[in-house]
């Protein structure tokens, strides 16, 4: 870690601190205040977008731990999110459990399913693992679509979340719940990657054989990465279920899984700030495209082909993913650190 000029660490506590300087504190607290007072300045529509961003962020942070830090490519993340969503919906709706039980249960069950499909990761990697997770995605969605408990292809409803009698009904109150958990999740991930576990993950990503020779227990850490990544997915899924109110397996399609991988790549793999950039970028782009741009174009240009509205989104997203991989493989996080460096050094170049 490079320190700004003139800053020195005198104690270990200072050396390990996440927030280092007074300016950091001011910026962080200012950002948090701004974030948590957002319901005051934004209308319900934008709060809904923020809620979606928060939910996606939780899942993406989990995927980033799995793919970005541990190097285990998973293209079935939407499937694991679906497991969480349906678990929580069934626990709270059919079995009438409290919301917190549903939330934790969703995380745990998703994590366990992740463990199950992560088992091959002990023997295979790269493309083989990618294919396994794709298979997981299709098997999970098939089971959800046909099992009677999960609605058998019909819509299934989930009640509004409530914790100890406090009900999160309005978009703005859900905003506090979702963003609160998202902030906690990001903080957890940030800390996790600085611990022994995180370092083991990075060692496995960089070279798993070398890591094993150095004494990293591959079985344990790879499965742990799958568990943590899918636990996050489960939590995100539960929040999604209770935020939306009704579930349909269509919402967790394979393309959604691809989009999740795209998000963490656009943000920057293996960085803590990356998922935030990626998720905000993709979700805001999605909103702008589908809500603002397409209706505008359809109104002003009359000769558009009829597939324009549905085709433009996947086309543009695919293009964005490919272009990012070719032109900026380190993602927006790299741009951000370049920006920070140039800001600090301005007006000098180094």
């Amino acid at each position, binding site marked *: 870690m490079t320190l700004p000029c003139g800053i020195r660490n005198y104690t270990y506590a200072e050396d390990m601190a996440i927030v280092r300087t007074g300016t950091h504190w001011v910026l962080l607290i200012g950002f948090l205040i701004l974030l948590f007072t957002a319901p005051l300045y934004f209308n319900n529509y934008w709060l809904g977008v923020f809620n979606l961003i928060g939910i996606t962020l939780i899942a993406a942070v989990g995927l980033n731990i799995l*793919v970005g830090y541990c*190097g285990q*490519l998973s*293209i079935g993340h939407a499937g694991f999110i679906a497991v969480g969503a349906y678990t929580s919906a069934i626990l709270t709706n059919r079995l009438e459990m409290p919301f917190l039980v549903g939330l934790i249960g969703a995380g745990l069950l998703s994590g366990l399913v992740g463990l199950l*499909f992560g*088992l*091959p990761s002990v*023997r*295979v990697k*790269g*493309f*083989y693992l*990618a*294919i*396994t997770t*794709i*298979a*997981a995605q*299709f*098997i999970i969605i*098939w089971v959800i*679509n*046909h*099992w009677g408990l999960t609605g058998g292809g019909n819509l299934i409803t989930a009640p509004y979340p409530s914790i100890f009698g406090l009900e999160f009904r309005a978009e703005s109150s859900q905003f506090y719940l979702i963003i609160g958990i998202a902030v906690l999740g990001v903080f957890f991930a940030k800390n996790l990657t600085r611990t022994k576990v995180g370092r083991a993950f990075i060692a496995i990503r960089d*070279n798993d*054989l*070398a890591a094993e*020779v150095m004494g990293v227990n591959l079985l344990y850490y790879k499965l742990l990465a799958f568990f943590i990544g899918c636990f996050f997915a489960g939590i995100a899924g539960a929040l999604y279920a209770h935020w939306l109110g009704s579930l349909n397996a269509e919402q967790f399609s*394979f*393309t959604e899984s*691809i*989009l999740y*991988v*795209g998000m963490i*790549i656009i943000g920057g*793999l293996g960085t803590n700030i990356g998922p935030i950039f990626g998720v905000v970028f993709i979700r805001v782009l999605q909103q702008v495209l589908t809500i603002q741009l397409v209706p505008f174009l359809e109104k002003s240009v009359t000769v558009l*082909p*009829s*597939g*324009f509205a*549905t*085709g*433009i*989104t*996947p*086309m*543009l*997203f*695919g*293009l*964005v*993913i*490919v272009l990012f*991989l*070719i032109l900026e*493989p380190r993602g927006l996080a790299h741009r951000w650190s370049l920006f920070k460096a140039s800001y600090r050094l301005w007006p000098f170049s180094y």
Partner: protein
Amino acid sequence: MAEFLQFVITGISVGMVYALIALGFALVWKSSSVANLALGQIVLLSSWFTYSMLVQAELPQYIAFPLVVVFALFLGWVIERFALRPLIAQPILSLITVTLGLGYFIEGVITFIWPWSVDALPQIFPRQVVHIGPAVVSWEYIWVVGICLTIFVLLTLFFRYHRMGIAMRATADDQMAVQACGIPVTRVFSTSWMFACVVAAIGGILISSIGGITHGLIETGLKSFSVVILGGLDSFSGAVVAGPIIGLAESLGGGYLTEHLWAGVKDIIPFVIIIIVMVIKPYGLFGEERIERI
């Protein structure tokens, strides 16, 4: 018994098409170790292109099919040149994700141009039936098996005797050594992509002439990965053997398990096979088990 034979024959012929598509995958994987996850979308795109040529442009078949081949060659060249070439020597993660992004992009293009999403190809093969023992089989299936076998033989001969085929095998073996010998590796890469797209396009025409053009073809492309996995990633003969196995498992399982399980069990069998193979024998039946060194 008649039912069983019916399932076996449909299974084998559909499996042959899977094997053909899987061959398109193995071609690229062998020469450049790029996992092409956009295969299903390429299959779908070339099926729609065939539809456009045959139905929308009303071209006769002897003009339309060469045009489809030319289109597939062009598609393969474009993909390799503009998406994969800049990523040479990048980590496998980027190589896999770039094909995912490509697939997403192609899917968008397909919705853009052919928004009605379901259609049927005009009749290509005769629809009469033949009686094989107690089973009744449409000529289509026999044609499909015949065409697949012909392409396998042609490809095998190409790889054994043609200059480019030998260069491709050499590239698969050792890229550095090949480059040192003066073989243009980049040209080998783009040739393998062009071949892969042509093979996938033929597979697409065959399978959509039986089952129509739907978005399910993307899943067909993904299912053909189970063929690659079962046969072994870098083995052509593996793909040819595993294709009919997968096809058989799919049609027999779909025929006999549906009553006991839920509907649509047919579509999930290849994915279950993937998981089983992964746990038991990850490198497949004929795949080369690579020993890794640090």
